[in-house]
């Protein structure tokens, strides 16, 4: 039964919602999005101390809480709802799973506890040359250098890439092609030869960076040549995370638009009394609830080791990204001119929805993956 949320999960959701309502209002997102980092060490430390966010899905033996993706996605729905400005996605949805899946026992023991505690902020660089998050596109070359490795090349669209303490990067061994010869590496955020340029983004609440590797010292993460498979698995999982975050954001937009329509009058009538508004509201509800079902189903399926998880994850991501954008457009429309102003909060979520359309691969690509991986 993939929708049997336990009392604990529901309680966790409630706690987080109240917590973010209190600690991460839109005003806080507006403050942080104007900083070059986009988040603050102090706040990130506090949210982890108080809520243990980064630790949720990390096994207990590595200092985590040992929960599954379902629990992490409860948190992601709430973060998407609050538009929390924090390096959570990069650290807990991308880097930690990569280390957990690909790393050696020793590497997990060395790296995961710091991530779980929130001390180590990490990210994953694997968008590839075309920005399609296809491992075969890996844009960084790895060359053996004595006992270690050195990386050369450029990776872009790296979330929190300019502020991460630790960068997991996918790189290719010389003379290999396609999915062969790819490995994951761990690089220190401050390593020599690593240039990290923050990028100007449409969605200012999640910063992206361009990382140039110029002979940067790197540690092989896990087995050599196992990078493609590992990255695939991590990206499938991350697609479900992004879908969950989108569902939370879309629901917030839907609720705010409803609240606005209810208090706004036009031609002497509540805006909510116009059938056009009512039918938009029904469409938005359908978009949010269907996307929510898919995202939650996908998370549970992942936790149960469903063999069709690749298809299910792409379904959830494409569905949630498209729903998020449709809801965001309706939300602006229902607000009217006000909804197009900077001071109204709607655009903050609209821009996150815009980024969600293409981050980790756009809907066209995920629909292709869905059909390609469809069991029947």
């Amino acid at each position, binding site marked *: 039964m993939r929708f*049997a949320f336990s009392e604990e999960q529901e309680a966790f959701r409630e706690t987080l919602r109240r917590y973010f309502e209190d600690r991460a209002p839109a005003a806080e997102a507006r403050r942080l999005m104007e900083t070059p980092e986009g988040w603050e060490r102090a706040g990130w430390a506090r949210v982890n101390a108080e809520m243990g966010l980064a630790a949720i899905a990390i096994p207990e033996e590595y200092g985590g809480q040992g929960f599954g993706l379902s629990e992490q996605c409860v948190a992601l729905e709430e973060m998407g709802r609050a538009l929390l400005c924090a390096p959570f996605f990069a650290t807990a949805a991308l880097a930690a799973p990569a280390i957990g899946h690909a790393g050696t026992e020793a590497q997990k023991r060395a790296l995961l506890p710091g991530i779980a505690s929130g001390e180590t902020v990490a990210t994953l660089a694997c968008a590839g040359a075309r920005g399609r998050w296809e491992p075969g596109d890996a844009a960084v070359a790895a060359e053996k250098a004595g006992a270690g490795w050195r990386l050369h090349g450029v990776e872009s669209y790296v979330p929190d890439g300019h502020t991460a303490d630790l960068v997991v990067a996918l790189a290719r061994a010389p003379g290999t092609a396609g999915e062969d010869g790819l490995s994951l590496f761990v690089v220190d955020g401050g390593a020599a030869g690593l240039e990290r340029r923050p990028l100007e983004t449409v969605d200012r609440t999640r910063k992206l960076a361009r990382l140039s590797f110029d002979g940067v010292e790197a540690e092989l993460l896990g087995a050599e040549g196992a990078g493609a498979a590992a990255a695939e698995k991590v990206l499938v999982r991350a697609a479900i995370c992004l879908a969950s975050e989108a569902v939370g954001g879309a629901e917030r937009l839907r609720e705010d638009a409803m609240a606005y329509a209810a208090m706004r009058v036009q031609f002497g009538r509540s805006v909510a009394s116009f059938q056009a508004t*009512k*039918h938009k509201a029904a469409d938005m509800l359908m978009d949010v*609830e269907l996307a929510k079902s898919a995202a939650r189903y996908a998370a549970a399926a992942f936790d149960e080791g469903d063999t069709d998880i690749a298809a299910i994850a792409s*379904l959830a991501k494409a569905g949630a990204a*498209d729903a998020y954008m449709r809801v965001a457009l309706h939300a602006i429309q229902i607000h009217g001119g006000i909804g197009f102003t900077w001071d109204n909060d709607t655009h903050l979520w609209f821009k996150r929805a815009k980024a969600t359309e293409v981050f980790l691969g756009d809907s066209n690509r995920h629909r292709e993956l*869905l*059909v390609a991986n469809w069991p029947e």
Partner: protein
Amino acid sequence: MAAHNEAAIRAEARAWIAANWDPELALAEWRGRLADSGWGMPHWPVEWHGRGLPVALVAAVDEEFERAGALPVPKSGIRMLAAATILEHGSDMLKEKFLRRIVTGEDIWCQLFSEPGSGSDLAGATTRAAMVGNKWVVNGQKVWTTSAHKAHWGLLLARTDFDLPKHRGLSYFVLDMRQPGVEARPLRQMNGHASFNQVFLTDAEVLPEFQVAATGDGWAVATTTLMHERRAADSLRAWGRGAAAGRAGRAYDEERAETETVMAPYSWYPQRAGRVDLAMRRARETGAIDDPAVRQEIARLLVLHKSAEWTALRARAAQEMGKPQGPEGSLGKLAASAVARLANRVHTAISGADAMLAGADGPMDGTIAEILVSTPAASIAGGTDEIQKNIVSERVLGMPKEIRLDADKPFRDIPRNTVA
């Protein structure tokens, strides 16, 4: 009985089934036993062919029947709407006359609510019932009536007072369909099927004791019928694959035959829903799967269809965990209509020029063509998308009701449709 112990009930049921069930019984005989013992409708009152069990325990009893392969009473169809309505609003005379026969399934029932002049607006019924001498005399026209041509009894909503506001001038009757004043004509749909009838009532007669509840209370009674309708519609789909499936024995054979008759008008319903199940298969068979544009459309359909399916699962899970019904529960019909609309496009894209062909010349012996000309009903039948969106926005989201101009005026002063 005070407390109901599930284990005890199961044991009781098992014992009774062991003592009474025999697949070689005539279906009528077996259902007679179910009616007399109360095991057929265990949640009905003891005095009316039931055992007074709480609804929550019915599932347990059903499981015992299933385990034993014993045929349950079909819990669907108009006859069950009739039972629910009569149980709640009917006189003892009506209960006496009909409830047992409903359990045994001797009569065919039909529902006479919709009229040509009032589509989604059931309370706008203009069929008139007037007391003439000591009988109600009914004149008017009903539509969208399933099995009216075969029915013995009809659940009739008629107007007994045109001077009261629309919801207050209605009354509810059980109409004898086998009388001269009742004429049922098949109503053909654009897909060629005739699942419904038009029913013309010309001085049709109803004895006073066949009225359900008091004059003017018709809408309240009709609401009861409608409440049970959705549930019935759901279980209807289940009916086909019933306990009889693939089993040998007289009772099984007789129920299979009955099921076939009952299900016949609904043979196109799966096509109306869009047959998403065929999309990938057809795409592979036709080679359309190699067309990236078609793949995109198939994927869109799968996203919508599975998300809707999982939303239904989520609603059921919440229900089973005893949580309050969330919004996800009220979107099924709208989602199904969106799926059907998209499925039509997908099957057209997959079939290409073959989408122009029907019957034996068409893909899958006409099944695809039937999809293409049936899905438009998905956004109309059982409440149009527009009505559904009003309901969702008003009842689920608490938005203001549509402005109505017909609530308090005398019905005769409200503009209404004239039907040719």
